[in-house]
Protein backbone atom coordinates (compact mmCIF):
# COMPACT_ATOMS: atom_id res chain seq x y z
CA UNK A 1 0.00 0.00 0.00
CA UNK A 2 0.96 3.59 0.17
CA UNK A 3 2.14 2.91 3.68
CA UNK A 4 4.66 0.40 2.43
CA UNK A 5 6.09 2.90 0.02
CA UNK A 6 6.26 5.63 2.62
CA UNK A 7 8.08 3.38 5.02
CA UNK A 8 10.65 2.63 2.40
CA UNK A 9 11.19 6.30 1.93
CA UNK A 10 11.77 7.09 5.58
CA UNK A 11 14.02 4.09 6.13
CA UNK A 12 16.19 5.25 3.30
CA UNK A 13 16.31 8.77 4.66
CA UNK A 14 17.24 7.52 8.10
CA UNK A 15 19.98 5.39 6.75
CA UNK A 16 21.37 8.24 4.74
CA UNK A 17 21.31 10.62 7.64
CA UNK A 18 23.28 8.39 9.95
CA UNK A 19 25.93 7.77 7.39
CA UNK A 20 25.91 11.16 5.81
CA UNK A 21 28.72 11.52 3.36
CA UNK A 22 29.76 7.97 3.96
CA UNK A 23 26.74 6.11 2.69
CA UNK A 24 27.61 3.04 0.74
CA UNK A 25 25.21 3.12 -2.14
CA UNK A 26 24.00 -0.32 -3.13
CA UNK A 27 25.99 -0.43 -6.33
CA UNK A 28 28.53 -3.00 -7.47
CA UNK A 29 31.48 -0.71 -6.92
CA UNK A 30 30.23 0.82 -3.70
CA UNK A 31 30.46 4.24 -5.29
CA UNK A 32 27.27 6.04 -6.28
CA UNK A 33 26.26 6.32 -9.92
CA UNK A 34 26.71 10.07 -9.81
CA UNK A 35 30.28 9.82 -8.63
CA UNK A 36 31.29 7.14 -11.11
CA UNK A 37 29.74 9.24 -13.85
CA UNK A 38 31.63 12.35 -12.80
CA UNK A 39 34.95 10.54 -12.74
CA UNK A 40 34.26 9.02 -16.16
CA UNK A 41 33.44 12.49 -17.43
CA UNK A 42 36.64 13.91 -15.94
CA UNK A 43 38.63 11.16 -17.63
CA UNK A 44 37.12 12.30 -20.89
CA UNK A 45 37.94 15.93 -20.12
CA UNK A 46 41.61 14.97 -19.86
CA UNK A 47 41.51 14.16 -23.56
CA UNK A 48 39.69 17.41 -24.27
CA UNK A 49 42.11 19.68 -22.50
CA UNK A 50 45.00 17.51 -23.61
CA UNK A 51 44.15 18.32 -27.22
CA UNK A 52 43.94 22.04 -26.48
CA UNK A 53 47.13 22.13 -24.44
CA UNK A 54 49.01 20.12 -27.05
CA UNK A 55 47.80 22.38 -29.83
CA UNK A 56 49.03 25.35 -27.87
CA UNK A 57 52.35 23.71 -27.11
CA UNK A 58 52.84 22.91 -30.77
CA UNK A 59 51.97 26.41 -31.90
CA UNK A 60 53.40 28.56 -29.14
CA UNK A 61 56.25 29.92 -31.27
CA UNK A 62 54.42 30.04 -34.55
CA UNK A 63 54.26 33.73 -35.12
CA UNK A 64 55.24 35.25 -38.43
CA UNK A 65 57.64 38.13 -38.18
CA UNK A 66 56.03 41.24 -36.89
CA UNK A 67 53.11 39.57 -35.19
CA UNK A 68 52.62 39.41 -31.46
CA UNK A 69 52.68 36.05 -29.79
CA UNK A 70 51.61 35.19 -26.24
CA UNK A 71 55.11 35.03 -24.80
CA UNK A 72 55.67 38.62 -25.85
CA UNK A 73 52.78 39.95 -23.83
CA UNK A 74 52.59 37.83 -20.69
CA UNK A 75 52.33 39.58 -17.35
CA UNK A 76 53.57 36.78 -15.16
CA UNK A 77 53.11 38.49 -11.80
CA UNK A 78 49.49 39.26 -12.63
CA UNK A 79 48.75 35.76 -13.86
CA UNK A 80 50.55 34.28 -10.86
CA UNK A 81 48.19 36.09 -8.56
CA UNK A 82 45.09 34.95 -10.40
CA UNK A 83 46.47 31.41 -10.54
CA UNK A 84 47.00 31.51 -6.82
CA UNK A 85 43.44 32.71 -6.37
CA UNK A 86 42.09 29.77 -8.35
CA UNK A 87 44.28 27.39 -6.38
CA UNK A 88 42.91 28.76 -3.12
CA UNK A 89 39.39 28.29 -4.39
CA UNK A 90 40.07 24.56 -4.26
CA UNK A 91 40.82 24.98 -0.58
CA UNK A 92 37.58 26.81 0.07
CA UNK A 93 35.79 24.08 -1.86
CA UNK A 94 37.07 21.27 0.35
CA UNK A 95 36.31 23.37 3.39
CA UNK A 96 32.76 23.75 2.14
CA UNK A 97 32.43 19.99 1.74
CA UNK A 98 33.95 19.40 5.13
CA UNK A 99 31.47 21.79 6.72
CA UNK A 100 28.54 20.24 4.94
CA UNK A 101 29.64 16.79 6.01
CA UNK A 102 29.45 18.03 9.58
CA UNK A 103 25.93 19.24 8.79
CA UNK A 104 27.03 22.86 9.19
CA UNK A 105 25.01 24.23 6.29
CA UNK A 106 25.68 27.86 7.10
CA UNK A 107 29.41 27.44 7.03
CA UNK A 108 29.15 25.37 3.90
CA UNK A 109 27.28 28.18 2.16
CA UNK A 110 29.94 30.64 3.19
CA UNK A 111 32.75 28.53 1.83
CA UNK A 112 30.83 27.72 -1.34
CA UNK A 113 30.19 31.41 -1.93
CA UNK A 114 33.86 32.09 -1.30
CA UNK A 115 34.75 29.49 -3.90
CA UNK A 116 32.41 31.05 -6.42
CA UNK A 117 33.80 34.48 -5.62
CA UNK A 118 37.39 33.36 -6.06
CA UNK A 119 36.44 31.65 -9.30
CA UNK A 120 34.72 34.76 -10.55
CA UNK A 121 37.73 36.84 -9.57
CA UNK A 122 39.95 34.51 -11.53
CA UNK A 123 37.67 34.91 -14.52
CA UNK A 124 37.68 38.66 -14.12
CA UNK A 125 41.45 38.54 -14.13
CA UNK A 126 41.44 36.51 -17.30
CA UNK A 127 39.10 38.89 -19.04
CA UNK A 128 41.17 41.86 -17.98
CA UNK A 129 44.30 40.10 -19.22
CA UNK A 130 42.69 39.48 -22.57
CA UNK A 131 41.72 43.11 -23.02
CA UNK A 132 45.31 44.10 -22.37
CA UNK A 133 46.61 41.54 -24.85
CA UNK A 134 44.19 42.68 -27.49
CA UNK A 135 45.23 46.25 -26.97
CA UNK A 136 48.82 45.18 -27.37
CA UNK A 137 48.01 43.67 -30.73
CA UNK A 138 47.37 40.02 -30.02
CA UNK A 139 43.97 38.81 -31.17
CA UNK A 140 42.54 35.46 -32.19
CA UNK A 141 43.48 36.24 -35.77
CA UNK A 142 47.04 37.29 -35.21
CA UNK A 143 48.83 33.98 -35.61
CA UNK A 144 48.53 30.28 -34.67
CA UNK A 145 50.10 30.93 -31.28
CA UNK A 146 47.58 33.56 -30.35
CA UNK A 147 44.67 31.49 -31.69
CA UNK A 148 45.77 28.52 -29.64
CA UNK A 149 46.21 30.67 -26.55
CA UNK A 150 42.76 32.21 -26.71
CA UNK A 151 40.95 28.97 -27.51
CA UNK A 152 42.67 27.09 -24.69
CA UNK A 153 42.17 29.75 -22.06
CA UNK A 154 38.70 30.43 -23.43
CA UNK A 155 37.65 26.81 -23.03
CA UNK A 156 39.09 26.74 -19.56
CA UNK A 157 37.40 29.99 -18.66
CA UNK A 158 34.07 28.66 -19.89
CA UNK A 159 34.50 25.64 -17.67
CA UNK A 160 35.24 27.92 -14.72
CA UNK A 161 32.17 29.99 -15.55
CA UNK A 162 29.96 26.92 -15.62
CA UNK A 163 31.49 25.90 -12.31
CA UNK A 164 30.73 29.27 -10.75
CA UNK A 165 27.11 29.00 -11.86
CA UNK A 166 26.91 25.51 -10.39
CA UNK A 167 28.32 26.70 -7.10
CA UNK A 168 25.85 29.55 -6.89
CA UNK A 169 23.04 27.14 -7.66
CA UNK A 170 24.20 24.93 -4.81
CA UNK A 171 24.28 27.87 -2.42
CA UNK A 172 20.74 28.79 -3.38
CA UNK A 173 19.53 25.22 -2.97
CA UNK A 174 21.06 24.94 0.48
CA UNK A 175 19.59 28.28 1.43
CA UNK A 176 16.14 27.13 0.39
CA UNK A 177 16.52 23.93 2.32
CA UNK A 178 16.30 21.79 -0.76
CA UNK A 179 19.81 20.46 -0.40
CA UNK A 180 20.42 18.91 2.96
CA UNK A 181 23.52 17.33 4.52
CA UNK A 182 22.30 13.83 3.76
CA UNK A 183 23.14 14.68 0.21
CA UNK A 184 26.63 15.87 0.92
CA UNK A 185 27.74 13.83 -2.00
CA UNK A 186 26.26 16.37 -4.36
CA UNK A 187 28.67 18.93 -3.01
CA UNK A 188 31.48 16.43 -3.28
CA UNK A 189 30.72 15.79 -6.92
CA UNK A 190 30.51 19.49 -7.71
CA UNK A 191 33.82 19.74 -5.91
CA UNK A 192 35.37 17.11 -8.14
CA UNK A 193 34.48 19.18 -11.17
CA UNK A 194 35.82 22.32 -9.55
CA UNK A 195 39.12 20.73 -8.52
CA UNK A 196 39.53 19.32 -11.99
CA UNK A 197 39.13 22.75 -13.53
CA UNK A 198 41.71 23.98 -11.06
CA UNK A 199 44.10 21.15 -11.85
CA UNK A 200 43.81 21.89 -15.57
CA UNK A 201 44.87 25.42 -14.78
CA UNK A 202 47.85 24.05 -12.85
CA UNK A 203 48.97 22.45 -16.08
CA UNK A 204 48.06 25.42 -18.24
CA UNK A 205 49.86 27.90 -16.02
CA UNK A 206 53.06 25.93 -16.25
CA UNK A 207 52.93 24.81 -19.87
CA UNK A 208 51.50 27.99 -21.34
CA UNK A 209 52.82 30.81 -19.19
CA UNK A 210 55.90 29.63 -17.36
CA UNK A 211 57.70 27.24 -19.66
CA UNK A 212 60.29 29.21 -21.58
CA UNK A 213 60.14 29.03 -25.36
Amino acid at each position, binding site marked *: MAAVAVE*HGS*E*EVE*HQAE*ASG*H*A*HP*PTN*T*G*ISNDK*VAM*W*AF*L*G*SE*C*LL*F*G*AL*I*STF*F*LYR*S*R*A*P*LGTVKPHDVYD*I*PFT*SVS*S*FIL*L*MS*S*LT*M*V*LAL*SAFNRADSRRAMVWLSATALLGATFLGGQIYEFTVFIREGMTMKTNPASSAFYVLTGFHGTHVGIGVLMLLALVILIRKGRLTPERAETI*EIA*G*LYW*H*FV*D*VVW*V*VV*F*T*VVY*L*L*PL
Partner: protein
Amino acid sequence: MTTTEHGPAGHADAPDAAHDAAHDHPTEKKYWIIALILGVITAFEVALTYLDLGDAVAPMLLMGMVAKFFIVASYFMHLKFDARVTRRLFISGLSLALFCYLGVFMMFRQLGPRSDRQDINLIETGVPQR
Protein backbone atom coordinates in the same frame (compact mmCIF):
# COMPACT_ATOMS: atom_id res chain seq x y z
CA MET B 1 16.35 -6.22 1.26
CA THR B 2 18.71 -3.54 0.30
CA THR B 3 18.26 -1.26 3.28
CA THR B 4 18.91 -3.90 5.89
CA GLU B 5 22.06 -4.98 4.10
CA HIS B 6 23.47 -1.61 4.84
CA GLY B 7 23.24 -1.39 8.57
CA PRO B 8 26.50 -0.72 10.39
CA ALA B 9 27.53 -4.35 10.08
CA GLY B 10 27.14 -4.09 6.35
CA HIS B 11 29.56 -1.21 6.28
CA ALA B 12 32.43 -3.17 7.71
CA ASP B 13 31.97 -5.94 5.21
CA ALA B 14 31.88 -3.71 2.20
CA PRO B 15 35.10 -3.39 0.22
CA ASP B 16 37.00 -0.19 0.83
CA ALA B 17 34.88 0.44 3.85
CA ALA B 18 37.91 -0.08 6.04
CA HIS B 19 39.24 3.34 5.23
CA ASP B 20 35.97 4.94 6.18
CA ALA B 21 35.70 3.19 9.47
CA ALA B 22 39.31 3.70 10.41
CA HIS B 23 40.17 7.27 9.44
CA ASP B 24 38.24 10.09 7.95
CA HIS B 25 38.78 12.69 5.28
CA PRO B 26 41.75 14.93 6.01
CA THR B 27 40.93 17.39 8.77
CA GLU B 28 40.37 21.02 7.97
CA LYS B 29 43.77 21.86 9.37
CA LYS B 30 45.36 19.43 6.95
CA TYR B 31 43.59 21.14 4.07
CA TRP B 32 45.03 24.50 5.06
CA ILE B 33 48.49 22.99 5.18
CA ILE B 34 48.04 21.39 1.79
CA ALA B 35 46.92 24.73 0.40
CA LEU B 36 50.00 26.33 1.89
CA ILE B 37 52.22 23.75 0.25
CA LEU B 38 50.54 24.40 -3.07
CA GLY B 39 51.11 28.10 -2.64
CA VAL B 40 54.77 27.58 -1.85
CA ILE B 41 55.29 25.41 -4.91
CA THR B 42 53.61 28.04 -7.07
CA ALA B 43 55.77 30.79 -5.62
CA PHE B 44 58.83 28.69 -6.24
CA GLU B 45 57.81 28.09 -9.84
CA VAL B 46 57.22 31.75 -10.52
CA ALA B 47 60.54 32.66 -8.92
CA LEU B 48 62.26 30.12 -11.14
CA THR B 49 61.22 31.95 -14.26
CA TYR B 50 63.05 35.04 -13.09
CA LEU B 51 66.28 33.20 -12.44
CA ASP B 52 68.61 32.49 -15.27
CA LEU B 53 69.00 28.73 -15.07
CA GLY B 54 68.79 27.95 -18.80
CA ASP B 55 67.61 24.49 -19.72
CA ALA B 56 67.10 23.38 -16.14
CA VAL B 57 64.02 25.57 -15.75
CA ALA B 58 61.72 23.42 -17.87
CA PRO B 59 62.16 20.14 -15.97
CA MET B 60 61.84 21.88 -12.61
CA LEU B 61 58.68 23.64 -13.67
CA LEU B 62 57.23 20.40 -14.94
CA MET B 63 58.05 18.64 -11.69
CA GLY B 64 56.34 21.39 -9.76
CA MET B 65 53.33 21.05 -12.02
CA VAL B 66 53.16 17.30 -11.55
CA ALA B 67 53.50 17.70 -7.79
CA LYS B 68 50.61 20.16 -7.60
CA PHE B 69 48.48 18.02 -9.90
CA PHE B 70 49.11 14.96 -7.79
CA ILE B 71 48.40 16.78 -4.53
CA VAL B 72 45.13 18.30 -5.70
CA ALA B 73 43.96 15.03 -7.22
CA SER B 74 44.93 12.85 -4.29
CA TYR B 75 43.82 15.05 -1.40
CA PHE B 76 41.31 17.60 -2.59
CA MET B 77 39.67 15.22 -5.02
CA HIS B 78 40.08 12.48 -2.47
CA LEU B 79 41.42 10.00 -5.00
CA LYS B 80 43.92 8.65 -2.56
CA PHE B 81 41.18 7.51 -0.26
CA ASP B 82 38.46 6.50 -2.64
CA ALA B 83 37.75 3.15 -4.21
CA ARG B 84 39.94 1.91 -7.01
CA VAL B 85 37.38 2.39 -9.73
CA THR B 86 37.44 6.17 -9.52
CA ARG B 87 41.23 6.20 -9.67
CA ARG B 88 41.18 3.88 -12.62
CA LEU B 89 38.65 5.93 -14.53
CA PHE B 90 40.67 9.09 -14.10
CA ILE B 91 44.09 7.60 -14.66
CA SER B 92 43.03 5.81 -17.84
CA GLY B 93 41.90 9.10 -19.34
CA LEU B 94 45.02 10.84 -18.16
CA SER B 95 47.46 8.20 -19.39
CA LEU B 96 45.72 7.94 -22.73
CA ALA B 97 45.94 11.69 -23.15
CA LEU B 98 49.61 11.70 -22.25
CA PHE B 99 50.39 8.81 -24.59
CA CYS B 100 48.56 10.19 -27.62
CA TYR B 101 49.62 13.79 -27.28
CA LEU B 102 53.24 13.02 -26.52
CA GLY B 103 53.14 10.90 -29.67
CA VAL B 104 51.89 13.87 -31.64
CA PHE B 105 54.60 16.08 -30.14
CA MET B 106 57.23 13.61 -31.18
CA MET B 107 55.97 13.63 -34.71
CA PHE B 108 56.14 17.40 -34.75
CA ARG B 109 59.62 17.08 -33.35
CA GLN B 110 58.73 19.17 -30.34
CA LEU B 111 60.50 16.87 -27.92
CA GLY B 112 63.79 16.78 -29.74
CA PRO B 113 66.69 19.23 -30.08
CA ARG B 114 65.74 22.85 -30.58
CA SER B 115 67.23 22.95 -34.05
CA ASP B 116 64.82 20.25 -35.29
CA ARG B 117 61.71 22.23 -34.45
CA GLN B 118 59.81 23.63 -37.34
CA ASP B 119 58.89 26.87 -35.66
CA ILE B 120 58.50 29.60 -38.10
CA ASN B 121 59.35 32.72 -36.24
CA LEU B 122 61.15 33.90 -39.26
CA ILE B 123 58.65 33.22 -41.96
CA GLU B 124 57.60 36.17 -44.01
CA THR B 125 54.07 35.90 -45.12
CA GLY B 126 54.15 36.82 -48.72
CA VAL B 127 50.86 35.07 -49.24
CA PRO B 128 47.93 37.46 -48.91
CA GLN B 129 45.64 36.89 -45.95
CA ARG B 130 42.06 35.95 -46.69
